[in-house]
Every structure is written in structure tokens, then in C-alpha cells.
């Protein structure tokens, strides 16, 4: 799956979990850029990403990403 496809799928997941269809993800998007992205919705995201991409994150990875680009890196690494 190329980076654009991962972004598209991830955007859908963000929109669904946050119940906000206006969310647009950029490489440098962080928690501060999305109001609904808090410590609780974060774990809903994780569960949904794991289920939809068929991957599993470590406890460490879940808390390590600085921005969306690192998140996507991590997903791509697991998919390859």
C-alpha cells in the first residue's frame, strides 16, 4: 500500500472515530491540530487502525509518534 493510500484510509478512520468529516490529515498534523484528538479518542483510533489495517502496535509505539507522518511510517513498516 503506498503512502497516499495509507493516508486516505487513515483519514477515513480519523473522520469516523472523531465523528467529524472535515478532518484533513497532513504529514505534519499533530494532536494539537484536531480538537477531538485526545487521550481517549487516541486509543479508539489505535484499535480501529489495528483492525482495519490488520496490524498490531506495541504499547511503546502507541505513545511514540510526534505527528501523523510518524504514524504513517509505522503503519507502512508493518504492512511491508
Amino acid at each position, binding site marked *: 500500500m503506498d503512502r497516499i493510500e495509507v493516508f486516505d484510509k487513515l483519514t477515513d478512520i480519523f473522520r469516523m472515530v472523531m465523528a467529524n468529516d472535515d478532518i484533513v490529515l497532513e504529514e505534519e498534523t499533530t494532536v494539537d491540530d484536531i480538537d477531538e484528538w485526545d487521550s481517549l479518542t487516541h486509543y479508539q483510533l489505535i484499535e480501529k487502525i489495528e483492525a482495519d489495517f490488520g496490524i498490531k502496535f506495541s504499547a511503546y509505539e*502507541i505513545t511514540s509518534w510526534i505527528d501523523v507522518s510518524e504514524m504513517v511510517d509505522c503503519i507502512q513498516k508493518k504492512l511491508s
Partner: protein
Amino acid sequence: MLTRMKTLIELKKNLKKDLGSLPVVKIALTGDTATQLLCTAIRGMGVERGYNLELYETDYNQVEQQLLSIDSELHQFDAEFIVVFQSTHKLGEYHSLLPMAEKEKLADDRIGFVTSVCENPYLANKKIIYFNYPEIGDTVFGSFSNRVEASFTFQIRKLNYELMKLSQKYPNLFICDIAELQNKFGRDRMFAPNTYANTEMIFRMEMLPYVASRVLDIICAVKGQFKKCLILDLDNTIWGGVIGDDGMEGIQLGHGLGVGKMFTEFQMWIKKLRQRGIIICIASKNNEEIAKEPFEKHPDMVLKLDDIAVFQANWETKVDNIRTIQRILNIGFDSMVFIDDNPFERNIVRENIPAISVPELPEYPEDYLEYLYSLNLFETASYSPADKDRTKQYQVEAERVSFSKSFTNEGDFLNSLKMVSTVSGFTKFNIPRVAQLSQRSNQFNLRTVRYTEADIEALAKDSSVIDIAFTLKDKFGDNGLIAVIIMKPLDKESLFVDTWFMSCRVLKRGMESFTLNMMVEKAKEAGFTKIIGEYLPTPKNAMVAEHYPRLGFVPVIGSGTQRWELDLENYKIRDCYITKE
């Protein structure tokens, strides 16, 4: 109503709706792990079931202090329901720290705590919803742990068993069977170690709706909202194949290999529901004679005709047949479940009768049962062994209806029934049934106050309260306990009717007049001169809006609610065809 489990996202959306019109229920939750999202799920599920839950979540890990100390925030909040969630993880932590000799006392220790909660006088009028313990098999002893009392496995199983015993002893303790949920879905789906590591959340988010649903099942059951009747389609629902085409020999049913076995097991489940008191009815597009044949003759049919309260097999629509069943049983559509393999029929029923629960069935019949287990459709807050006779009572009612048609005069008919009623206070024999009827009666219920067994026991002990329970039998059979009166003194002169409810099975038999005669007798014996009645309207009890005026009560001027009074000195005993036993 479409019955499938909602997602956490859907539940969260519910909370953005305008909840102003929903009845408020106060509930408190205290737990030893992170419970924020569980609370969100519970509130969202509340909306799904028609309640606006005002939920107070105590601070993290304060279960003991919050429950046992009188001036805690939890006590001040004064909830109707208190959910207590002590996790197996925290129990395991505690177990690991105990010296070997102490480990075998872990379950007793925890049971001691739950007992002290149940016996706390400040919690006596609360309903405690206590989560039992999903197992964590730590394999420290392997399977040998079954023999070692000190092992964690031994202690969890013992604890869950003792909790069951405790809930038999304390009627205000309701065990929420989270362990059963884990049995159903498996530990790896219930629990996400990576989320737990970072958050202290025990349940995977995907599972929160199921947990919340189990909590709401109990709340709804206590509040009188539960299922009483299961309506079944026949072809490809309770047997494989089409009876009209395949014939008795051709349908798939019975032991041996293949899908027939699954239909047999499905029927066994239905039979157990029937024995528990769920009314089983049939709605099928079929020729009646052909449809009944397997019930009478097929050797592998578990369900027999006498398991079925109302059998509707004809060429009318399912919707019409379900409406006919509803008229005969006289219970609300919201207390009915309809199971049909055909998605088209399911949708038509949902569209035309929105209140009825229609589970979306899996595609393959072998999956029906496991799927239906996951929905926990038949939660209850009470059970009495007499429930198993309910089917018989409805069958008798159908006979009574056809018998009444042979009379032109209603008085002659009632007289010919030879009705006899026993009149008593609340006793240990009738308390479970009184409590149950208090939760079930919706239509003939003047004030709809719900009482648990513990509440009824307390009323029975209170000598200032006049409580009366009535049974009714006639030439066709015994209806058992069918009406209840609770009267409390307002002052020296007047008695207030706190509760008057009656089973709709005995409508139009003059039972109201008989009941009032008895009430007046008891009130006079106790020296009162007036009985005050009140009607509190609900969406379901319009039937008794004019109840008091019909019985000769006159309006109480200037009362804020609909109150009526009856002057006992001038009371004339009302005619009725019921004799007191």
C-alpha cells in the same frame, strides 16, 4: 427495532442528541481501573434504551472508601443504581502480593467486602450492580490449579461462585456477568494489553458496548422493561426446509450430523426459555394443519404444541399475525421478540411495529444460537418457579375467550366462571411474585412504583403499611397472584393507595370491585375513614386513567396531581362475582 450491537462511535453520537424528553435515572460507577470510556458507553447505551442516565463516576481506585464511608461523594450523589467494577487484574495484583498461606483466603476476603456493601444500611435502597470476574488463567500451576486452593484460578472461580450465592441472599445485589461475556468472546478480544499498558483500561473499546449493554439489561429489567414473549417463524427458522414443500420427512431436524442438529439445539434453547416463563408464539405463512403436524408427530421436535401459547399459521401477513398475538396476550410490543430467517419479513415487521425487537440473524442457521446468545435478549430482575405455568395460563385464556362467546349476558358469564380469590398480606411465599409483578405491570398500574424483593420484604415488616395480595382462580384454572395493594397512612383519618396494580390477564372480571371491597374492609378495621387514590400517567397506563372515578371516588380539590378520595362511612359493598377463599 433493529437488534444488533451498536458501536462505541454510535453510542457517543447518542449523547449529542437532545435527551430532554427521556426519563432520568441516576447511576454511580466506581472502579479500580480507568472507567471513563465505560461510563460514556453506558450513558450512550442508556439513550439507546430510552433513558437519560445521570452518571456519577467516582475518582479512580476509591471503591472501598466511596462505598463504605457515609459522607463520600457517592453517597451524596444518591444514585438509584451503583455499578461496582473491581477488575481481575487488580485482584491478581493483590493475590501476587499475599504470602502463600494467605492466598487461599482471597475470595473470602472479597466476599466479606461485598457483603459489607450489601449490609450497609445507607445502601439498603440502592441497587448494586457488581461485575463478576472474568478469569485470567495465569498457569502458575497449570491445570493442577484446580486442586490448589491458593491458586489464582481457584480463587477467581470460587469468588464468582460465592458472588452468585451472595446475590441469592441479598435481593439488591445484581451480578453483572462480565465473565460470561469473556466466555463468549474470549480473553484476547476482551482485553488489549497495549491499550491497558498505557491507559489502565481493561476492556478493548470494541467490547465496551457489550459491557454497557449488560449493565443496561439489568437497569431495564429492574425498571420493568424486559422481554416476555418470543414469536417464531417456522420454515428455516426452527427447522430446516419448508414444511409445505418438503413434508414431515423432508425437513431438517434432529440429532446426527448436519444442520438438523443445530435446529434441534435451537429448539432446546426455546424450550428452556418457555420453562423460564417466556411466552412462545408462532407466526408463520403456512397452512395451519400442515404447520402443526411436526409439533404433533415429528420424533425430533423438541417443541410441542403445548409449549406454544398462540399458534398463528395462515396466509395473513406476519404483521397482522403479530398484532393478533399481541391482542390475545395483552402485553406491549416492546416486550416481544420476533425471530425470522427472512430479512424481508424482518424489515416489514420492523417498519410496521417499531417497538418489537427483531434480531438481525446471521446468514447460516448454525450461527443463530451463538449470535442470539451475544444479544442477551431475555435479561430479568426476578424469577419465580411459577413462571413456567405462564404458557398454560395464556392457553386457558384463549379457551376462556371462546367460552365467553356462548353467553349473551356478561353477568351470567362471570357467574359461570365460579371465581375464587385468596386474600393475604405479603408472605415469604408470595414476596418474589409480588416483586416480579411490580416490575412487570405496566398497563393496569396506577402509580407504577417498582419494588424489588428487598423493598417488598421491608414493606411486609412495616406494621403501618396495609399490604394485600390477591390470587384468582376459576373453573378453567388458577391465575395465581394477580393483584397487589399497598396502602400507607397519610394521617389518622386517611390511607393513601401507594400501589394498585393488576395483571391484565384478569381484566373485565370484576376484580377491581372485589379488590376495593377488601381494601375498604381492611381500612375500616384499622380505623381509617378515607382512602385516597392517585393516578400517575405513564405512556402505558392510560387504561386506568378513569379507574378511581369509575369506582365511586371523588376528586380531591386542589391537589397538584390526579387524586381521588373515597368516604368509607358511606361505602356500599360493590357487587361482584368473586368469592373470597
